[in-house]
């Protein structure tokens, strides 16, 4: 399987995911072995360079959230490798445990989707933002206070001392999400997984949060995995986009390139379905059948076969197509018929 490869020759990627897999057994009762598995993430590979932002795009059930959770070790993969660059060395963190995870958590953090539910309502903003510090035993209380103040200032909650001892319910949605960003950045991580951080915010506030994230990423040298279902948002936040469908990455490449020249039939269907805030824009309709279902004990051929308007013999006779870059422009698609489709 060809892996999308380093962006610069000689530079190792910050995160290199190889054949990552997560299968959930469908239980058949307490004493029977599971025979059916949901292949939530079915062997995906990608990498992210230092300072780069990769968007993971797809509809619900495609496995993007599961991927994100595996990268922050909220969940352990059932197969594959996650190679994380630390001190020039790549280390497989897929199956580390115990005390190693704690050290790992200084480097990889997460921003959650729900600005309210992602904070303990009984803890102050200070408690929430300083939690990584206090749990890892970093600094004295006063030092932590100062660090939190510094970060609150950075995320635009000024004057920061006003916010330090408030509770989440006293803040608005946008403010809370800023706190979430502060918490993610308080330990100076090198990599942040952002799981739909703006989808629950008002439209007029989204941009300021997105801009904040981009600015901070640049200033602090942080890479992002930006998980979203909203392609328009991905366009603004991500250097590259990976499109997922039923646990597989079907297309991956530079953002503008994918939006301008989608190769995979699913990507094209997705793009044609996104509503555009311009009534004069006429979308080219791409007819696509059926709806998403779960990948339960999937058959080896292309996952998209049931719904693909271009499915042909070659698709039925072969296993799920690998990601290939036919034109050498770093734009990969997993489709046998990529050259024939217009």
């Amino acid at each position, binding site marked *: 399987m060809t892996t999308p490869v380093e962006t610069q020759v000689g530079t190792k990627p910050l995160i290199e995911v190889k054949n990552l897999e997560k299968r959930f057994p469908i239980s058949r009762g307490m004493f029977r072995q599971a025979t059916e598995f949901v292949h939530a993430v079915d062997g995906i590979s990608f990498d992210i360079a230092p300072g780069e932002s990769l968007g993971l795009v797809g509809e619900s059930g495609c496995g993007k959230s599961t991927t994100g959770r595996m990268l922050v070790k909220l969940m352990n993969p059932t197969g594959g490798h996650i190679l994380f660059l630390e001190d020039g060395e790549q280390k497989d963190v897929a199956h580390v445990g115990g005390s190693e995870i704690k050290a790992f958590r*200084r480097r990889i953090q997460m921003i959650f989707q729900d600005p309210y539910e992602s904070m303990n309502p009984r803890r102050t903003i200070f408690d929430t933002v300083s*939690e990584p510090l206090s749990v890892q035993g970093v600094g004295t209380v006063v030092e932590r206070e100062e660090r939190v103040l510094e970060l609150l200032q950075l995320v635009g909650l000024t004057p920061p*001392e006003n916010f330090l001892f408030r509770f989440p319910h006293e803040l608005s949605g946008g403010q809370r999400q800023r706190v*979430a960003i502060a918490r993610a950045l308080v330990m100076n991580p090198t990599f942040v997984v952002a799981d739909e951080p703006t989808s629950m915010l008002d439209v007029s506030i989204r941009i300021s949060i997105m801009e904040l994230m981009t600015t901070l990423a640049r200033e602090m040298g942080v890479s992002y995995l930006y998980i979203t279902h909203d392609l328009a948002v991905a366009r603004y936040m991500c250097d590259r986009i990976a499109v997922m469908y039923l646990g597989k990455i079907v297309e991956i490449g530079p953002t503008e390139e994918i939006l301008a020249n989608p190769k995979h039939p699913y990507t094209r269907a997705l793009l044609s379905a996104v509503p555009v805030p311009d009534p004069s824009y006429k979308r080219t309709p791409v007819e696509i059948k059926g709806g998403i279902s779960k990948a339960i004990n999937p058959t080896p051929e292309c996952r998209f076969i049931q719904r693909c308007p271009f499915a042909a013999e070659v698709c039925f006779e072969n296993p799920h197509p690998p990601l290939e870059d036919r034109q050498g422009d770093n734009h990969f698609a997993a489709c046998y018929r990529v050259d024939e489709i217009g």
Partner: protein
Amino acid sequence: MSVDDQTQVTEPLDKELEDLTHGAAAVTQVPMWRIRWRLFRRSFARNWALFTENKMGLAGLTIIGIFALMAIAHPILMTFVWDPAIYDPVGGYDAVESIVTIVEEVTDPATELSLEDARIQLNPFVEVGEEIVTVLQPAPPSFSGDYSHWLGTDPQGRDVLSQLLFSTRAAFLLGAIAAITTVVIATTVGSVAAYYGGITDSIFMRFADLILLMPLLPVLFVVGPLFGLTMLNLGLIIGVLNGFGGVAIVLKSQALAVKVKPYIDAAKVAGGGNGHVIFRHIVPNVLPLSFLYMMFGVTEAIAIESTLSFFGLLNVRMTWGLMINTAQTQGFLLSGVNYWWLLFPAGLAVSILAFAFFIVGRGMDEVINPRLRARG
């Protein structure tokens, strides 16, 4: 999209926290504990305001307060006002003696006693015409004279009021032991079972089912005589049984609701270990519900105790239940209004105090469960 999110602008700070916010340097100077204390006071004040909106909870608290005063009053009275020989709730003795003449037929009940009654009550060998010293026991309430008993005396000559006040302390003690034990055990069990799931969860829950199956009172009826129950171990037994039983199940489901919240994930991603997550995140969000059940637990404990001592199964000095037990064993249970002071004070005390804790619990429910609050 949380479309019904009422986006809030930060409220103006109250005066207490204002001195904390004059500059970042000022904030870091103030010691953490003082900040926590102020925050606690502020949120307590808010919760109190909510609690007192509903008169019910306030009424319950008042009643409990009155009983607390009663409990405190007893040792004070015993030390300064009352003569222990007479007023001690267990060993005191007071009786009004009177001299009656035994006659064939009673014309004046105050000074005469019929032969039949005399032979039954006193001595089979009395004869008409004899003058006997009888004791009026139990005595009805009297407020005057050398021996004033505001609630009368019981069949063994002990002052009922003193007994009532003395038992209040026992009731609170029992309630406290039972309730706290229940809450500590149930919160921990519920949180741990919810967090770990799997086998741990199954074991605790099946055990809880087992306990639920057990009828508490009959079990205590057996345990009581076998091992001897004092207030302390009764409290512990009730606490332990409830703690591993029904309350654990309820608190576990609350813990489950907390466990799936994103902030638990956030705590893990921050580097929090299992202990940190359970005791710093899950338990604090389960505790309000625990306190609620604590209130109901006190109600139950008081009721159980009075039942058990009514059956004489408790090894206690004096409780309300025991007061009724005394009345019953001496044959006054069905005497109704004639000997009301033997039954009503104790019975009412049990009922009212248990009820008071219950309605305080209901009042707390409104604070804890915002959906119950009346709309503006």
